[in-house]
């Protein structure tokens, strides 16, 4: 994967999400535009790059969030593990796959966020910390999943700029051949 393209895509998604905040709310929930990008990378990139990319996008999100630092990195990392584990059995380019994978990933992120929102004020004894709202996180997850096919369709148009190479086609290195002979 070309990391420059990855960072430009992450920056653009984050800037759009920040700028559109307040305008694209439905029932108090705004979509997470970085998560479809994370799912897109996790579906297409090699495993180490996919997981690392998911954590980096989570850190991006953390930098522009009012939640504790590291929360989204942790949640995106777990969501990345989920998507990477499921990708061998899904049709990668199908819109329904985009929707289902994003919904699962958003559900994972929502669960982590809710646990954090419940535990954080108790650990740090904060009185005015916003209460955890299951409905708000559920709306956000569903909203994110609904916009995901559109985001991924746009990303698929520029897919070659990411330079993805699937796990099974990378050239074997000298060490790999040596290990094969030994085994």
């Amino acid at each position, binding site marked *: 994967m070309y990391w420059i393209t990855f960072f430009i895509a992450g920056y653009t998604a984050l800037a759009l999400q920040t700028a559109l905040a307040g305008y694209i709310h439905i029932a108090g929930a705004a979509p997470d535009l970085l998560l479809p990008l994370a799912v897109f990378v996790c579906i297409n990139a090699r495993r180490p790059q996919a997981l690392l990319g998911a954590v980096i996008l989570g850190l991006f999100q953390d930098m522009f969030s009012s939640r504790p*630092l*590291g929360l989204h990195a942790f949640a995106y990392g777990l969501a990345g593990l989920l998507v990477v584990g499921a990708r061998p059995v899904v049709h990668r380019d199908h819109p329904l796959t985009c929707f289902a994978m994003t919904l699962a990933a958003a559900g994972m992120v929502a669960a982590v966020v809710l646990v954090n929102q419940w535990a954080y004020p108790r650990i740090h004894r904060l009185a005015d910390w916003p209460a955890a709202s299951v409905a708000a996180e559920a709306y956000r997850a569903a909203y994110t999943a609904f916009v995901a096919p559109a985001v991924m369709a746009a990303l698929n148009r520029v897919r070659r700029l990411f330079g993805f190479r699937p796990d099974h086609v990378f050239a074997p290195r000298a060490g790999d051949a040596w290990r094969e002979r030994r085994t």
Partner: protein
Amino acid sequence: MSYVRFNHVFAVLLLGCGAAAFLVPVRYAGRVRGEVQGVLAPVALPVRSAVNAISARLAGAPENGALPGAGAAPAELERLRVAVASLTVQVDELRRLAGGRELAGDAQRYSVPARVLGAEDGPRHVLLVRAGDGVAAGMPAVWRDSIVGRIVSCAGGSARLRLLTDRGFRVSGAFGRFRTTADGTAVEFVAAATPPPLVEGRGDGTLAIANLTCRQLDEAGVRVGDWVVLRDADDWPLPVNGYVLGQVVQIAPQPGARLFAEVIARPKLNLGQLREVMVVTGVERVPAGAARAVAGVRSAPAAKPR
């Protein structure tokens, strides 16, 4: 790197992030965030401007956060209203202080414009704004005749503006209404005779007042449609006292304590859709024309003696 080694590194990374998310106080994170939040400006500013213009055109509302219908009052009437309310409160405070030690006058003169980059993700109601010269933490932000919030941190050319409606944002206010004088020539602000209401953001775009009894509100004649204005000369600069916090939309007894009332007020502006705010720095702003004139004088070449 083999998958086994990567898995170990990834597990450590994930556990580190998880530990930070639960154990590191959010105030430490704020220092890191403040330095980087301005980097989104090249994309976020034009996108927000475009969306604001499109939204205004589609909704038929004036630009920059004005709610539909709120822009019906002529600008002159609005300006007069805020001047009346502001001066009424200021005069009261100045009488109380027996002197004009505090900065007085129209807050707009002592403020600088700050473009809004966008809103922070998460449950907090926080806007990211481009911070110009003189902007610092603790300064209030206003737009037109309304209080928007307060700057909570400022670094790296950007600032975080905590909105009035954020959960736990507390400020002291006053109820009142605008009415035309008997001779019909002027507008006056009549404050209701209640103890100071404690206005608190609820985190859902509204404000709540829960420290007054139903009887106090009845006796003062507070009703739906009245205005809640800022009245907190101790913590807020005097020029912004009298600025509007919101309009009363509901008065009901509190579910857990029937003697106390819960008053719900809604800000006049849609604070999440603001494109620009005025940050009250306390330093008088030089009008654009005057600034040009000064620059012209300075840059004018000296006339050659004949």
